[in-house]
């Protein structure tokens, strides 16, 4: 696509394809669709760049056929397309160019069917997660997928990023829930793939491809009966490593608590604080609050991350309440009870102190609050981000230590372990920093990420467990993936020969070696 592209004729052509003519070049739309929730974008916005790279056009197709026509149109002209759910990704997966067409899929939001016997549901990719859960709940079912972004993320976005929810210990990740997909590839072909069908292999290839191979328009999903009741348990362990041992033993013993979350001592302290200041009743969180004195002081302290990390290291773990493990079961009650008894035995044997049901119940009440803690720090001039990586159990604690050590000179860091499996787990690092100017903050943010990703790959971990790669991790992909990156490039040639689907995300911009 050349530099001088007349956008208005393209908008008219696309409006003719789409029911209701929903295609826009309005500045307000271009600004709204210029980015996702990558914290680096937030810092640019704070620095006065609300839309560093706005798209040329935003379109709102009404069905799969319209999506296919849009893709064919763009493919014939070499126009880049950026599939868009709710824009809540945190890795820079959305970054259009002035000639990009952003394809917002939120009109594809119907819950088409629920099969109560086979426990399956079919839904449009643009449905907001909480709406999907509400519709299923009305019928007595759950998808079991509860990312903290559930209010502002879509089914299609979950599929694009291989998302995980808080109850992954029972229901798995989104890839475990998808039974079939309808999608449009980069040639504008409508493809359908189902588990057990001839194109079954396409499912794990497209899931997690971050919109670079196909635009998912509809999914057939495995659902479960909505939990009739829950069982809760919580344990305090003297140190993180002991809590990790308990988490490993639980899942390797075949127990499947829906929630298994271990917080390191400082994160435990934060988790115990529960809801955020100003949070409305019900725990929905409160974004956009102005920073108070405490936040301003914290942001100032974050300019000396090494000292802050050392200070926290000096505080005995016990003063923070140790490492806290929260367990929640959502299985059929008799199964949950049997598993709870065994979990209690395992935790006690490994030195855990029983904290009763309280911490689990409190966590559930405020389960989506944590994301909303970012706003005051950002508003106060600091920066904050999260990094979710994964490793096998034998590499878990060394990786935890290595990443902490790599981050400590740059930012203040804490972590929890929120998705466990028989063979390993995910570590969710939260880090915060601050510098005296916006430029220095951006440079420090980039250095932090580089150091963290290097530490993860050196420790034998994988760069992402459920946020995806986007642009924030793309540069490090070669180090983890090696020649696999080139296989993915070839796969993209097959499904998107013009390379128009979400270029620049996931696959690092470098020539194939």
């Amino acid at each position: 696509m050349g530099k001088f592209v007349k956008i208005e004729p393209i908008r008219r052509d696309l409006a003719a394809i789409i029911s209701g003519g929903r295609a826009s070049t309005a500045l307000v739309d271009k600004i709204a669709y210029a980015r996702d929730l990558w914290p680096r974008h937030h810092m640019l916005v704070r620095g006065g760049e609300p839309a560093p790279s706005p798209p040329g056009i935003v379109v709102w197709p009404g069905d799969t056929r319209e999506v296919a026509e849009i893709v064919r149109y763009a493919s014939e002209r070499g126009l880049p397309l950026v599939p868009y759910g709710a824009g809540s990704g945190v890795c820079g997966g959305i970054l259009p160019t002035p000639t990009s067409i952003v394809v917002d899929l939120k009109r594809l939001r119907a819950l088409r069917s629920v099969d109560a016997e086979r426990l399956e549901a079919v839904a449009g990719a643009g449905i907001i997660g909480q709406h999907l859960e509400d519709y299923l709940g009305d019928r007595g079912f759950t998808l079991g997928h509860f990312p903290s972004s559930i209010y502002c993320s879509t089914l299609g976005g979950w599929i694009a990023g291989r998302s995980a929810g808080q109850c992954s210990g029972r229901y798995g990740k989104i890839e475990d829930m998808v039974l079939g997909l309808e999608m449009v590839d980069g040639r504008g072909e409508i493809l359908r793939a189902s588990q057990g069908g001839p194109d079954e292999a396409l499912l794990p290839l497209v899931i997690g491809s971050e919109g670079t191979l196909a635009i998912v328009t509809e999914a057939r999903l495995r659902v479960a009966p909505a939990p009739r009741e829950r069982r809760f348990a919580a344990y305090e362990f003297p140190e993180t490593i002991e809590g990790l041992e308990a988490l490993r033993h639980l899942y390797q013993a075949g127990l499947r608590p829906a929630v298994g979350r271990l917080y390191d001592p400082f994160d435990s302290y934060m988790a115990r604080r529960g809801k955020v200041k100003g949070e409305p009743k019900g725990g929905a969180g409160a974004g956009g609050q102005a920073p108070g004195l405490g936040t301003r002081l914290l942001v100032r302290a974050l300019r000396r991350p090494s000292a802050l990390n050392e200070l926290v290291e000096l505080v005995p773990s016990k003063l923070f309440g140790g490492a806290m493990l929260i367990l929640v079961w959502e299985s059929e009650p008799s199964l949950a009870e049997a598993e709870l008894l065994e979990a209690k035995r395992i935790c006690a044997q490994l030195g855990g102190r029983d904290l009763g049901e309280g911490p689990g119940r409190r966590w559930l009440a405020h389960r989506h609050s944590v994301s909303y803690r970012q706003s005051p720090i950002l508003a106060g001039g600091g920066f904050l981000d999260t990094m979710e990586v994964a490793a096998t159990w034998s590499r878990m604690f060394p990786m935890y230590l290595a990443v902490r050590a790599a981050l400590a000179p740059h930012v203040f860091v804490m972590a929890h372990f929120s998705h466990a499996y028989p063979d390993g787990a995910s570590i969710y690092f939260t880090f915060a920093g601050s510098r005296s100017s916006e430029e220095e903050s951006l440079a420090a943010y980039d250095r932090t990420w580089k150091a963290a990703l290097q530490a993860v790959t050196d420790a034998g971990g994988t760069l992402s467990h459920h946020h995806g790669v986007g642009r924030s991790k793309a540069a490090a992909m070669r180090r983890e993936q090696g020649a696999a990156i080139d296989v993915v490039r070839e796969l993209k040639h097959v499904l998107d020969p013009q390379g128009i689907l979400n270029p620049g995300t996931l696959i690092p911009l470098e020539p194939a070696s």
Partner: protein
Amino acid sequence: MKTLAEILERALPRCIQQGRDETLLLPSTESDIALALELAAAQGARISPPGAAPVEGAIRLDLRRMQDILSVDEISRIVHVQAGATLAAVETTLRRRSLTLGMAAESLEPPIGEWIAGGTRGGRSGEDDPIDQMIAGLQAVLADGRALRIRPAPRRAVGPDLLAAIRGSGGRIAIVTAVHLVARARLDSKELAFLFAEPNAAEATLAWIRGEGVFPARSALIPTAEGMALRIWLEAKGGILAARETLVRRLAEARGGVGIEPAEAPPIPSEAAPAVSGIVEALAKRLDPSGVLGA
């Protein structure tokens, strides 16, 4: 002009063996495989990967010299093993450590490379236990000789899951040389079997068993002349096992299932090798334009 077998014999001494109907290439390392692929491509010849259908005139790659157990990570319960080893050999190693692959004995026969190329038939299913995975990572050689590495990790979100393209591809995407297999503990076990007059009822029962959180170790739906049989294998500690068994029976009986002795249950029919998907075929052609692996 020399044949490929003669060229390989010279380049890789003692790696060529004449089989009953075909010529075999017996590499000892990934480098041997990469060199053989390079030489075959230069000749415009083909090497038949483990698990591929026989091709007249092609030299068959046989990984019997690559069957070492490279390591057993007892903490993660992951065994790193070369692809020439059989699943049965891995199972023997694991049993000494009170671990298991959790597969039926009759499914353990194939070498791992062939098992993956043929679609991992008989392997544990994520449908039964969504957080379980059997293959945590692998090593392979691409048609151009480059090494492909998928490091072992519980679950990753770093793009497409390439294992999906390799599994069941008949070796056309890559030649798998080593695998990280996830084992599980050997726990108390119980097999249950039910007969249903209505196949839909059997399918619904299995969906609800999974949906209520039972997590069978294995399951099978088997069409019969009278309807459908459902076989369920449970593995758990005593109290949990009993709770799961009770629930399975309740769910099955509520849908008209009649419990039978497992010994009377119909056998699981052998699965046909899955057809290679059109997308995987197209990918194979791009990765192997000279067709050395048969793409």
